[in-house]
C-alpha cells in the first residue's frame, strides 16, 4: 500500500470525524441557547473555542453571536475546519485514494459532499438548523456504515480507524480542557440533581447526556463527568476508548507489516495514561495539566504515525 494512500485514508477519516464533532458542538450550543438564554453568548464563544477555532474566528469577526458562530463553524470556506471545508477535504482525500475505497464508501462520501454542499451553500436559517445538523451526522454515519460493512479488515481499514480516533481523542480532550474548571472539585458543588449549563454542554458535545445517566444514576457530579469522558472504556468518545482503539489498530499494523515503530511506543504511553488509574489521581495531579499533556501527546503521536508509515516523501 502506498504511503500516500495511508495518508489519504487517515486524513479522510480525520476530516469526517471533525465534521461530526463540529456538528455536535453546534448542537450543544444551540440547545443551551434555546433553554438557557442567559448563558447563550458566552456559550457560543466557548463552543468556537472548543472547536479550536476562536483565534481564526477573531481574525474576521469582532463580536460573537449565535448566527456568526454557526455560520463560521458550519459553512465558512475561509475557515479550514468548518463543516463545509472539512467535507470538501474529506472528499478530496477520498478521490486521491479512490482505489483504496469500496464503491460504497466512495459513493457515500461523494453523496455526503453533494448533500452538504447543497445544504450549506446558503446561510442556514434558524429553523433549518436542527435538520441541517441532523443531516451532517446522518451523512457521516452512512460513510461510517459503508466502511464497517464493506471494507476489508486490513491495513487500509487500520489507517481509516487511526484517523477517526486520533481526531476523536483530540476533540474530546479539548472539550474537557475548555471547561475543565467547571469539573474541578469545589466546596459549593457536592453533587447536584440539577445539572448546570456547563455540565450539560460537555455531555451534549459528545452526545453523552443520556448514556451518562444510565452509567451514573443519581446526582450529577463533575467528577463523574470527567471520569466518564476520560476513563470509561465503554463510552465510544472517551479518551480511554479512543486511545485503546489507536493502540489496537497500530498493533494490527505492526502484525501485518511485522514491524514496530516509535508510534507504537507513543500509543502505548497514551493508553497507559488512562489505564489503571483513578479520576481522583488525575484530579490530584491537575486536570488541566493532564488534558494538556493528552492533547500534546496525541498530536505528537499523529505526527509520528505520518512519519513511520511514510505518508510523505
Amino acid at each position, binding site marked *: *500500500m*502506498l*504511503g*500516500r494512500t495511508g495518508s489519504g485514508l487517515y486524513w479522510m477519516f480525520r476530516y469526517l470525524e471533525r465534521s461530526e464533532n463540529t456538528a455536535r458542538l453546534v448542537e450543544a450550543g444551540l440547545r443551551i441557547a434555546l433553554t438557557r438564554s442567559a448563558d447563550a453568548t458566552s456559550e457560543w464563544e466557548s463552543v468556537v473555542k472548543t472547536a479550536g477555532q476562536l483565534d481564526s474566528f477573531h481574525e474576521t469577526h469582532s463580536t460573537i453571536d449565535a448566527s456568526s458562530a454557526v455560520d463560521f463553524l458550519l459553512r465558512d470556506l475561509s475557515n479550514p475546519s468548518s463543516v463545509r471545508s472539512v467535507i470538501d477535504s474529506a472528499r478530496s482525500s477520498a*478521490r486521491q485514494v479512490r482505489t483504496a475505497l469500496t464503491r460504497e464508501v466512495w*459513493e457515500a462520501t*461523494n*453523496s455526503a459532499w453533494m448533500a452538504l454542499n447543497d445544504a450549506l451553500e446558503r446561510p442556514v436559517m434558524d429553523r433549518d438548523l436542527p435538520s441541517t445538523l441532523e443531516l451532517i451526522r446522518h451523512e457521516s454515519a452512512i460513510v461510517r456504515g459503508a466502511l464497517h460493512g464493506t471494507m476489508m479488515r486490513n491495513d487500509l481499514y487500520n489507517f481509516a480507524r487511526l484517523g477517526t480516533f486520533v481526531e476523536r481523542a483530540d476533540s474530546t480532550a479539548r472539550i474537557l480542557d475548555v471547561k475543565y474548571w467547571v469539573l474541578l472539585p469545589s466546596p459549593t458543588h457536592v453533587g447536584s440533581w440539577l445539572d448546570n449549563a456547563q455540565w450539560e454542554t460537555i455531555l451534549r458535545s459528545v452526545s453523552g447526556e443520556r448514556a451518562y445517566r444510565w452509567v451514573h444514576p443519581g446526582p450529577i457530579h463533575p467528577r463523574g463527568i470527567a471520569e466518564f469522558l476520560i476513563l470509561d472504556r465503554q463510552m465510544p468518545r472517551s479518551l480511554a476508548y479512543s486511545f485503546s482503539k489507536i493502540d489496537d489498530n497500530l498493533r494490527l499494523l505492526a502484525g501485518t*507489516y511485522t514491524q514496530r515503530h516509535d508510534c507504537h511506543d507513543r500509543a502505548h504511553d497514551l493508553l497507559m495514561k488512562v489505564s489503571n488509574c483513578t479520576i481522583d489521581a488525575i484530579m490530584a495531579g491537575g486536570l488541566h495539566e493532564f488534558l494538556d499533556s493528552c492533547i500534546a501527546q496525541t498530536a505528537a503521536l499523529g505526527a509520528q504515525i505520518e512519519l513511520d508509515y511514510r505518508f510523505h516523501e
Partner: protein
Amino acid sequence: MDTRPGHFDEMYSPDGSVRETFADYGKWFENEDPRQLIKKSDEAEALFRRTGITFNVYGDGAADERLIPFDLVPRIIGHREWARLERGIEQRVRAINAFLYDIYHRQEIVRAGVLPVELISDNVAFLPEMIGFTPPGGVYTHIVGVDIVRIGEDEFCVLEDNARTPSGVSYMLENRETMLRMFPELFGGIRVRPVGNYPLELRRSLTECAPLRSGNEPVVAVLTPGIHNSAYYEHSFLADQMGAELVEGHDLKVVDGRIAMRTTEGYRAVDVLYRRVDDEYLDPLTFSPDSLLGVPGVMDVYRSGGITLANAPGTGIADDKAIYSYMPEIIEFYTGDKPLLSNVPTWRCSEPDSLRYVLEHLDELVVKEVHGSGGYGMLIGPAASTSELADFRAKLIAHPQTYIAQPTLALSTVPILTRAGLAPRHVDLRPFVLMSPGQVHMVPGGLTRVALEKDSLVVNSSQGGGTKDTWVLDD
C-alpha cells in the same frame, strides 16, 4: 423519427422501418412511455454524479467537475459488422506497431521511399531517446483507441488513431453498468456481448509485457497526473478494477536501478507502469525539466530494461495527422496486404497542389491541425462563417505544414432521446485495442460519442458531445 437526408441512420431506414440490428430494441422501445424514459434519463444522471464519473475541463477551475451527458438509446452494431471492424483494426494496430519498431531502428520505410524522411526527422513526437531501443516484448502500443466513423451501410473508415494514451474506456464500462442497472430486461432478451472483462484483459495484457525476470507476479501500477487531471476518474477506475496501485510522480523514485513506489513499508519496485502522463512530462531529466508529474530518471531505468512503460514513449508519431495520411501505404508496407479499413481522404497542406485545392474548396472541407486533438483548432467549412473562413485561409497560407484537410463526412446518425422523442444525431466510435507479445485483443464494444446538437458533427466531450452505450450483438 425523420432521418437526416443524405446521412445513414443506424436504427431507421429512410422509409421509416427499423433496421435488423435494432429490431429487438425497436420493439421494446415502442412499448415504452417516452416520458418515463426521460425520467430514467435523469436517474442516470444522478447515478453518474453519485459515482463521481466527472471530468475537469482544461482551463476551468479545479472545482469545476462536469458530467459527460449520457444518452440511453444504445448504439447497436451487428455481429457481421463487428467482425469486419475487428479484422481491419487488428491489421491496422499491428502495422502501427511494426511502423514504430521500424522508425526507431533501420527506418526501412524511409529507405524504400514510401515515407518522406522529414515527416519523421522534423516531427516533435519522434523521440531520439527511443532510437535503437526495443521495448519489452517488442510492444510499443499496449493500448490503442481507433476512432471509426460510419458513412454508409457497409462503409466504415478510420478517422484517427490514438496511440499515446487513449481515454474513454471507463465510459464504455460505466455506460454498460448504467444500462444494466436501468434496463435489466433488455439484456434478458437481446444477446449483447459483455465488455466488463476489459480491466482484467488490460491487466493480463500489461503483465505479459513485463520485463523478463523470474519469480513473482509482476507489479503493475497506473501513473496519473493527479486528481485535477481531466481523466482522473478513469485513472482511478482502471487502477481499482485491475487491482493495481494508482501512483503519482512523487510516489515514485529510482531505487537500485528500478522504479519503486513509496509504500507504508518502504520502497517497492514496479514492473509495469501504465502511465497516463504524456511523454514530455514523463521524465524531467530527459524531457520537460520543470515537470512535476513524472519521475526523474525513469527513462534511464526504462532503457536499461528495468521497467515496462505503457504505451512506450514516442508512439505519438504514429497518430500524428500527417502520418495518418500515409497509413494506407504504411499498412501495405508492413503487412503486405491492402488496408481492410479505409482512411478518410486527406490533403496534406504542406504539398502545394493540395494546398491550392484546399484553399479553393475551404467551405466544403474540414481542416485540422496536424498535432491538434480534442476537436480544438479545427475548421468545419460548411458550418463556418465568412470571417472564420477568412481567418483559416490566412493561417493556411502562413503555416501550410501545420494543417491537413479532409472532406466533410456524412457521418452516420443514431437516435437520441429528446423531450420531443427520438431525434437523429451524429456519432463516432472508439473501440479499444490491447496489444501484448503476439496477441491483439479487442473487447466487443467501445465508446460511442454523440454530437448532441442537431446536425452538429463535433462529438468531443470537451465541446458538448455525449456518450452512448455501444452494443455488439452475439452471433
